[in-house]
């Protein structure tokens, strides 16, 4: 959040409203931009990120779809290749199972398979995350799943300022962008929300560039890397650690593809310790990638073994005590530091 354009602007927006504002501003200046997805019209999106758009732009450009993710995401690929700039909603990222071919075999590969002659400027926005007892078909993050597959950019904002700037950048990008917004940050009253995600947002249009992580808190003893909800857990953990006299630096990745390995590495070189927070599954995912990218570059910057605080390798349970037990939280991050802090 060090890159705020205007700190005097007192207007605070939720991520949901920031996303809708970015889309509206792009739609006003670029008639190729349109939105489609389930319940994104009159309802304004189940998670509020298209609220108000149908009133301004009408049903043609704010297009409710049948419950046919394969059909409409495949259609978005065709429309994008034909010169449009669709913004498409996959209501829950967990639903990727019914439409992944359109995403990873068409959207992500057509540019490469055409030798760069076909462009697919498509934004696939999708909700992630749990914590509200919706169980494992509506609560996953799956960051690593998408970031693993080449051909699509993947972003996951932690706050409304970034959400607006990254949505604007996503719509203007010539490539497919998977815009992953965390339900717990969205600002929907009925879901409960993380207060830190609702921040000052300039009214004017701006871009937050992809591939640039943000150091959202500076420190000297440990680097805590996270994205989306993980950033807020990391910031709270940093407060707790500060009370113990430990200075934690917090890095918000913001973008997974392209990944800003440099900022992570420079931070770890300074602090010598690394904890990665990820609400996605523990194994084969973002946390392992971050640790590997530091170790591969220079193992000697580490004073202690890296640690990860990630979701255990189990489907997400319904029962509140079980789900809360599994989720990353500030106390787990502090406990992870305690295992490496003395080194």
């Amino acid at each position, binding site marked *: 959040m060090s890159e705020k354009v205007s700190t005097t602007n007192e207007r605070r927006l939720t991520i949901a409203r920031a996303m809708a504002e970015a889309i509206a501003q792009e739609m006003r200046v670029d*008639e*190729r931009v*349109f939105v489609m997805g389930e319940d994104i019209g009159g309802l304004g999106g189940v998670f509020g990120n298209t609220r108000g758009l149908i009133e301004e732009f009408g049903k*043609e*450009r704010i297009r409710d*779809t*049948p419950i*046919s993710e*394969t*059909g*409409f*995401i*495949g*259609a*978005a*690929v*065709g*429309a*994008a*290749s*034909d*010169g*449009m700039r*669709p913004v498409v909603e996959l209501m829950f990222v967990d639903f990727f199972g*019914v439409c992944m*071919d*359109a995403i990873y*075999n*068409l959207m992500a*590969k*057509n*540019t*490469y*398979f*055409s*030798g*760069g*002659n*076909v*462009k*697919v*400027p498509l934004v696939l926005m999708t909700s992630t995350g749990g914590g509200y007892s919706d169980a494992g078909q509506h609560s996953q993050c799956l960051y690593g799943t998408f970031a693993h597959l*080449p*051909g699509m*950019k993947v972003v996951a904002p932690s706050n409304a300022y970034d959400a607006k700037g990254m949505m604007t950048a996503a719509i203007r990008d*010539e*490539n497919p962008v998977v815009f992953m917004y965390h339900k717990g940050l969205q600002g929907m009253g009925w879901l409960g929300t993380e207060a830190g995600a609702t921040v000052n947002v300039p009214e004017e249009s701006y871009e937050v560039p992809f591939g640039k992580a943000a150091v959202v808190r500076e420190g000297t003893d440990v680097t805590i890397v996270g994205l989306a909800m993980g950033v807020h857990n990391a910031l709270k953990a940093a407060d707790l650690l500060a009370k113990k006299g430990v200075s934690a630096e917090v890095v918000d990745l913001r973008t997974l593809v392209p990944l800003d390995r440099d900022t992570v590495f420079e931070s770890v070189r300074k602090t010598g310790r690394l904890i990665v927070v990820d609400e996605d599954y523990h194994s084969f995912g973002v946390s392992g990638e971050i640790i590997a990218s530091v170790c591969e570059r220079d193992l000697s910057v580490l004073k202690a073994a890296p640690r990860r605080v990630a979701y255990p390798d189990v489907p997400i349970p319904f029962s509140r005590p079980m789900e809360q037990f599994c989720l990353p939280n500030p106390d787990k991050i502090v406990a992870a530091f305690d295992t490496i802090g003395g080194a």
Partner: protein
Amino acid sequence: MQPNREQQLWMYEHMLVSRYFEEAIEKIYLEGKTPAFNMANGPIPGEMHLSNGQEPCAVGVCAHLDAGDIATSTHRPHHVAIAKGVDLDRMAAEIFGKKTGLSGGRGGHMHIFDPAVNFSCSGIIAQGMGPAVGAALSRKMSNREGVAVAFLGEGAANQGAFHEALNLASVWKLPVVFVIEDNAWGISVPKADATAVPRNDVRAAGYGMPGVHVAGNDPFAIFAAAGEAIARARAGQGPTLIEIETSRLAGHFMGDAEGYRPKGEKEALFARDPIPRMRDRMIAEGNLTAEGDAEIAARAQARVDAAIAFARASDYPAAEEALERVFA
């Protein structure tokens, strides 16, 4: 609706180009693959799905399209690509994996993209349908002319993507035509063992659009059915589903021993090869002479020879180019 003489000649010549092209590919494909057949060897490695026998579907439909219209095809795309006007030299080079190929060798025979004529294909069954619907949506939303045609096989009609695309196209009344090339086989499984209805055109009723059946692999009948459907789409009256009975004269892919075919089927199919039938009909109706036929055949063969020569003479890409063009 009947093709006029000029259209017939165009259809016939493109059928010949497609047939000759695949005859050349078939021969070259086997280079380096004998005595032991290894798909990875030879100047054309990988899977090879030939479309010989299915040429009438491509020319009967594409006779109504121009470069601005959109066509999506399947893992068996050559005939449609040729009828749609894809650059034959660069398509051949792509099939050889050469630098001069349409995609610089990244796609190969199942991933042919030529945006100059709005042609693309995908190796995944039924997955060209969504993009065709979307391209039609794009034209409708931006008030640009053009229809989209999605080619698919009869096996694709059992994919979820088929049903989603039909419903979406109909509920949004889009200028798109779905063309099923029913060659009766999904690799080794006959249509009757896989499909709950004898004819897929009846499925159109479930999506509130006309369904049309074309029997006999007849380019004239295909031309008529496609002409009506495409005119309907251009007039803003929405999508049509067409199922064409066609024939796959080759195996599913090269190397397929075709042990699943009933005895005598191949011979019967070759006896009804659509190319000599079209030639005979045109001659009988006075639209083609023996000399004219020889001239067209020579021109088609020369076109193919030039494309193959271009592909053979082209260089391979530098291996490191594999790392480029992931993003635009």
